[in-house]
């Protein structure tokens, strides 16, 4: 499974959403993911991928697509990509 699919899969479980309907370019709050839910979700993303996304990059994440790019960058930096 590619990175985006894994993120969608995690999001669908965490927020009881249909993975197929998750538009990677839609704002996270359109899925009901507020700031607190996002921080908790990031914690699980980092656990799952074994990476750490720096605080200064968190603010730029507005969509699942943004999240995928940050995770991919962190994976590359960690030599896991």
């Amino acid at each position, binding site marked *: 499974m590619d990175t985006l699919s894994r993120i969608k899969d995690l999001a669908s*479980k*965490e*927020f*009881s959403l249909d993975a197929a309907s998750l538009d990677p370019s839609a704002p996270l709050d359109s899925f009901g993911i507020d700031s*607190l839910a996002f*921080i*908790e979700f*990031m*914690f699980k993303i980092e656990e799952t991928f074994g990476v750490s996304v720096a605080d200064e990059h968190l603010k730029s994440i507005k969509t699942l697509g943004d999240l995928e790019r940050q995770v991919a960058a962190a994976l590359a930096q960690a030599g896991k990509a």
Partner: protein
Amino acid sequence: MATRRVAVTGAGVVSPLGSTLEGLHGALRDARSGIRRLEPAVAGGSGVQVGALADWNPAQTFKEAEAANLDRATQFALAATAQALSASTLPLEGRSERVGVHWGTGYGGAHTLETTYKHIYGANEWRTRPLTVVMAMSNAAASNIAVRHALRGPFANFATACSSSAMALGEAMRAIAAGRADAMIAGGSESLLTPATLAAWQALRTLAPADASDAGASCKPFDKRRGGLVLGEGAAAFVLEEESAARARGARILALLTGYGNSCDAVHMSRPDRDGQSRAMKEALAESGLSPSDIGYINAHGTATSVGDVVECEAINLVFGDAAARVPVSSTKSMHGHLLGGAGALEFGAALMPLMSGWLPPTAFLEEVDPACKVRHVPLRAEQVSPPRAVMSNSFAFGGSNVVLIAARP
């Protein structure tokens, strides 16, 4: 302004004796105990032998991901509240600013904190779940109730140890009586059966060991053989409403909450005091406009500690005088254990049983009454009587807080 009286129109329960009010009453009527030997995974190295775990399967109420974001105590609180609201059929639309939440808990999210500390101190693993704070804070249950049902009226969380949820009910009654709310969700929850909390309690040397022949019979209030309290967990929630509005909408009224007494011993952190207890009982009677002879049942605090049971019986005698020989007293902790911050609310639910059905809940396993506990007991088995005019529920806490509630037949 005419006096605004307060009706109880819904109840919800999560307890070691079933997870409905009817289930609780049925178990009390049958003198069934929810106390069990604790599994090693719960007791850890604490040495605590028995406890009363709630009859609880989170999957029946919550999705897995949802349950993972709620402390066990908050899960209980939400489940009990949903039952109470559903039973009350209280319409909430368009009036949510007139409906509030008063909740009681001794501690809050102990499971959440203990899990976190286990990672940090046990495994030197400092990476911590971002939801830890909002799951563990002591108002987590109250706030989740408010958010889930959009209840925007008077809000408070009471943390006075074992009187917390009784205080929540009493203060909620006053909020309605004073016109600050038309209806309130009031109750309490607690879930402290975790290894570290059990170890702390065990250090106090107030917990009962397992009864050698029947673990379910380990808590024996008012009995010469009593060996201390047994910790339990659970929640109870009630819908309180201004009486005339409840009648106007045809609500089923379980009881009227008529009196609330609140006092502090201010003498000792753990030793109870009959003066403080009796002042709370007198205040609740005075507010209800009732005399001791109107009370047809007392649900005692009755934790089964050597000192506590005697002091409470002395306080009852001080307040009730000659009537003390006639008013039935029992401690249902013999069956559901001590729910600590949730105790007052659950036992208020138990105290409603005589009003609703005429059954007096017993003190289970009371075979050898301690002569120093001189009250009219309901030993071993429930008794059927004609429903009394009113009942009293006592909740006395470490730290000296005393709360007494009186409910009357509608």
